[in-house]
């Protein structure tokens, strides 16, 4: 049975990465799913565990870069046409120097969209942490959140403890 929304659940707290991996395997073997893994550092293998696709951020960066390029070139062309500085028959709309402006603005656009993308896709911009969050997740502990209905919380708690969880907390919303 798959639990769609993380209403209730169990949070297991681990001090060892190896135990954490074992717990994730055990949870998956029983047919439950892991809603989130908390860690003080990025764990590379989580991408495989959760079958995460490469971040969609790359499309946003590309889009931001193109938008910046067009904005930079557009501004340079617009400004040069507003006040036509005709010097020795040289072109008023000079693409070669404008490339520099376009390049700078393309990178600025890419950076702006990178920041927006990570905040939106990572769901970071919330300014508060969930009630079940444990401060040790930023020190040296790891957390596994398994969503399950209240009548199964005991069963999942036992499973996580067997896998090496130091502490297990029931999460209620």
């Amino acid at each position, binding site marked *: 049975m798959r639990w769609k929304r993380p209403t209730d659940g169990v949070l297991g707290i681990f001090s*060892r*990465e*190896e*135990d954490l991996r074992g717990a994730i395997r055990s949870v998956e073997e029983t047919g439950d799913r892991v809603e*989130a*893994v*908390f*860690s*003080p*550092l*990025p*764990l590379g293998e*989580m*991408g495989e565990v959760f079958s*995460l696709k*490469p*971040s969609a*951020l*790359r499309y946003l*960066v590309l889009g931001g870069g193109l938008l910046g390029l067009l904005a930079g070139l557009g*501004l*340079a062309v*617009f*400004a*040069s046409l*507003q*006040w036509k*500085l005709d010097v020795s028959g040289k072109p008023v709309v000079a693409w070669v*120097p*404008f490339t*520099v*402006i376009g*390049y*700078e*603005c393309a*990178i*600025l656009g890419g*950076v702006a969209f*990178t*920041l927006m*993308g*990570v*905040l939106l*896709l*990572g*769901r*970071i*911009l*919330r*300014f*508060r942490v*969930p009630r079940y*969050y444990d*401060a*040790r*997740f*930023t*020190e*040296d502990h790891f957390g596994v959140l398994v969503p399950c209905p209240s009548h199964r919380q005991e069963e999942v708690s036992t499973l996580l403890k067997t896998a*090496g969880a130091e502490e297990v907390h029931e999460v209620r919303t």
Partner: protein
Amino acid sequence: MEAVSYREINRRILGSLLPPGKPYYLALLACFSGMVIGASCWVYQIYFGLGVAGVNHPVMWGTYLINFVFWIEIGHAGSLTSALLYLSGAKWRNPVGRSAETMTVFAVAIAGLFPFIDLGRSWILYWLWPYPNQRNLWPNFQSPLIFDEIAAAGYLIISSLFLYTGLIPDLAVLRDHHRGVRRKIYGFLSLGWTGSHRQWHHYKTAYMFFAFLITAFVVCVASIVSWDFALTIVPGYHSTIFGPYFLVGAVHSGMAMLLTLVIPLRRIFGLEKLIPIRVLENVAKIMIFTTILLIYIYFVEFFMAWYSGHAAERTTFWLRVFGPYAWQFWFTVFTCMFLPLMFFFKRVRTRPMGLFVISIVINIGMWFERFVIVVGPLTHDFIPYAWGHYWPSWIEWGILLGSFSFFFFLFLIFVKFLPSVSITEMKEMQEAPVRVEGTMKGRGA
């Protein structure tokens, strides 16, 4: 690197945020005094006009431009250390990455002050920006000065965002470590970071893109700063080698500044275990490489001046070596090209005190290098009757002192409120702990 547990990393780095001792306040006071001197000089210049500075025909670009180039190039090295080494997977950069990023932001912010100061009438800087106005006047986007303005402003934005993005997980550490008002402030700044796998997934991708974009921007900014000079026809300026020349010079001086900052930092806060001597040694090795490149570039510059057969070019370079600014040139050669070669000796590059002293001397030498580049050619242009001489006035020296004081003041404030070493990246350097038959094995254990 020596084994350090995750908890120990937190403890050691957060220890640097504890209330400081008397030496810290004395250093802060010294920097503040320097800032007051610099600010007073600037106010004096605004009141009496740009005439109080030493700049005058034919040398209209004096120390303010030298300082601009010097500081923005310090920033370049910070970005390259952090971003380029991150992209290349050099994990030894982790302990100094944060200091390098911080150095970049502060150096670029200070560099950005100098166009204001150089204008004399600083309050009309906004004329440089494109904005709709009644006269329908717009900046000339074909000018390298406008390229430079956008580059410097953009660089400040990008480097600040790069620093902040790297700080987010560490701000969450601070939030979880503190109570009361500090917790609220750090909590707000950490934006609600929990360290969930989803957040890490997008965060690592974003950090990689930031590193890539900032590297591309640094190369662009370094070249653009050089074009302020190279796109003129002044002999000694008008050279295609200026782009790489400025980039190499930037890395050279920036690495020296990084050593100047990091060596006292690790000593004062007891971070020797987290910033081992091997990291400082690697910085010194990079400086050997940049020194050799710099020697080659100097050789090419002189060779091309001779090979061109151009009388003005030849005169400019002859005067560089034997003219009125010869001692500055030879001082530069000694401090920036001969002294760093001492790093070939392992004994020199593995002694923090030696590295620290040499790094300061290199910084002074690199400032004089910019002096030789910026001032020398202007004093002896094409027309002999327009030749002149320049030496900074006490106002300019005062503002220079103020800029250095401001830089170190900002850094001192930073290290007391935010982690000067990345907690997350230090943990990434450790081997993951595993449980083997009831015992703990691994570096993080």
